[in-house]
């Protein structure tokens, strides 16, 4: 028989602190509380009172082998959730799991998702409390799946929501905003949000080595944030990634492995590596936590709009998780009474025509995506042919009343230039996809011209400069005399600003 003690610890200034009764659990599983495996004898559990009331999650020992096999380092020492996280739930069958570094249901392989105690959060997480905090993603900490204070990526998020009137005029709409994660810290993409959560959780799980399969932005973010946290990282990328994204990973001292294959092949390899080595792969065994970080983009949009949600959101899609998590963020704010009106946002997915599994599914009325074997697009950050959340993204888009489209490489470049020249935002190719898709959807009449639209810009153009090499040409070069400049001006219809 193993006995476990439970200690009520400080849950941070914004979380309830109530005494809890000590309890014991025997090996026969007398309670269904998510406990610890019998062979672990001395562990401190940090538990919030709301969590105690949720006794339907299965005991951890039932899944011990499952977890130990996947992530042995986790089994050595760790805490059980003390946040408003109730546990994890299979998105297909609803089976409940304790909080562990596992990403799929052992019954049906369905994805696991974090389940929160929304009733417990009502009145606890207030607008006043939120607005008094620093404007970054952690101001919504109670709705993110970490137990204590974040330890990685403390300055991530809090990016601008830009009123985009000049771009709006160009694409023929009246009320347009840009959520600009191209300036996210530290690696200039929305991936810093997901990595901040995943690595903070990896730290809580006691994982020392982390990794990812990446199309570039995630590689940058895992490498940088792991370096700052003193973690070792293994980054797997397709061998044809943009040079800037490779350098922007190697510079942090990460172990970078270029794989001769598509992203999907890299991803499959990483799943096998995760099984073999038990590292914390942010988008594999840490994926349920990782994906939750994307919600912060949605939380910020709603708050920046004055605690309301837009009528339309256009999101780039690679793995397909972002669009669903922004939707989940809106719904969560409503559930805990931070929004007065139930969100009715329509979501639109944007992909490149050279890799359009999700937009293809939406446009053709398929229940789920059909994988694209060999993606062929300049937008490498969206070049995922077999997106993990493809089914859910297509379902959400349809059910919200939105739509999906894809755009050619030329349209992507035009979108990048249009955004840069109208709003001064240099987005990467995925941003070009989003802008060009939004324009196409407006032209098709899918998005009404007079309603409020938010475009999600997820990465910085400095990482994908090669994509515009043929568009921009070389600046005029002159000597140092005024005469040369005047001559240049007279020969140029528009002033040349290099």
């Amino acid at each position: 028989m193993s006995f476990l003690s439970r200690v009520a610890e400080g849950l941070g200034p914004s979380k309830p602190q109530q005494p809890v009764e000590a309890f014991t659990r025997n090996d026969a599983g007398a309670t269904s509380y998510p406990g610890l495996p019998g062979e672990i004898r001395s562990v401190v559990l940090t538990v919030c009172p709301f969590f105690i009331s949720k006794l339907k999650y299965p005991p951890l020992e039932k899944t011990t082998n499952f977890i130990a096999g996947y992530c042995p380092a986790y089994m050595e020492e760790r805490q059980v959730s003390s946040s408003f996280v109730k546990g994890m739930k299979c998105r297909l069958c609803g089976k409940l799991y304790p909080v562990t570094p596992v990403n799929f249901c052992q019954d049906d392989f369905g994805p696991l998702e974090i389940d929160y105690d929304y009733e417990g959060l009502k009145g606890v997480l207030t607008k006043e409390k939120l607005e008094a905090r620093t404007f970054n993603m952690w101001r919504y900490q109670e709705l993110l799946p970490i137990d204590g204070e974040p330890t990685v990526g403390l300055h991530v998020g809090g990016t601008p929501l830009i009123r985009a009137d000049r771009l709006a005029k160009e694409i023929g709409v009246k009320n347009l905003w840009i959520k600009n994660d191209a300036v996210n810290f530290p690696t200039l993409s929305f991936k810093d949000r997901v990595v901040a959560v995943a690595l903070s959780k990896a730290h809580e799980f006691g994982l020392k080595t982390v990794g990812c399969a990446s199309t570039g932005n995630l590689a940058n973010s895992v490498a940088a944030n792991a370096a700052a946290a003193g973690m070792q990282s293994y980054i797997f990328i397709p061998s044809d990634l943009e040079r800037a994204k490779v350098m922007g990973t190697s510079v942090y001292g990460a172990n970078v492995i270029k794989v001769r294959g598509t992203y999907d092949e890299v991803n499959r390899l990483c799943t096998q590596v995760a099984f073999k080595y038990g590292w914390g792969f942010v988008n594999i065994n840490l994926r349920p936590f990782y994906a939750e970080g994307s919600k912060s983009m949605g939380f910020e949009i709603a708050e920046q709009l004055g605690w309301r949600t837009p009528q339309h959101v256009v999101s780039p899609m690679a793995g397909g998780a972002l669009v669903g998590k922004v939707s989940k963020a809106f719904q969560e704010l409503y559930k805990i009474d931070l929004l007065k009106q139930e969100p009715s946002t329509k979501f639109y997915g944007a992909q490149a025509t050279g890799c359009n599994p999700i937009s293809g599914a939406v446009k053709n009325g398929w229940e789920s995506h059909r994988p694209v074997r060999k993606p062929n697009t300049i937008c490498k950050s969206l070049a995922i042919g077999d997106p993990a959340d493809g089914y859910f993204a297509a379902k959400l888009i349809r059910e919200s009343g939105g739509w999906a489209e894809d755009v050619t490489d030329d349209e992507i470049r035009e979108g990048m230039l249009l955004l840069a020249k109208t709003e001064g935002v240099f987005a990467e190719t995925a941003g070009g996809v989003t802008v060009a898709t939004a324009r196409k959807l407006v032209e098709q009449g899918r998005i009404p011209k007079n309603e409020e639209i938010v475009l999600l810009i997820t990465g910085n153009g400095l990482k994908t400069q090669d994509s515009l090499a043929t568009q921009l040409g070389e600046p005029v070069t002159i000597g140092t005399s005024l005469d040369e400049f005047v001559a240049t001006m007279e020969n140029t219809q528009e002033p040349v600003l290099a």
Partner: protein
Amino acid sequence: MAVKIQIPTPLRPHAGNLASVEVIAITVGEALGELCKLHPAMEQRLFDNGQLRRFVNIFINDEDMRYLENLATPVKDGDEVAIIPAVAGG
């Protein structure tokens, strides 16, 4: 044909704690069927009403079977079949 099926670590408790199981089959579908006969607990995890579950991917020598002939893909002696959860990446 003798085919080795690699079992993902988390599911090994349902396959006698084995890392791989060798079966005789001429297609991928047959190979998985043999696996389920040997370890019946795998059946409900891999299949739903006879259909491979949505979030299960099967690879033959690192090639996704969807790009071949799905469960009808022929296998030969020494082939390795990997069962890989689809919920990863992005």
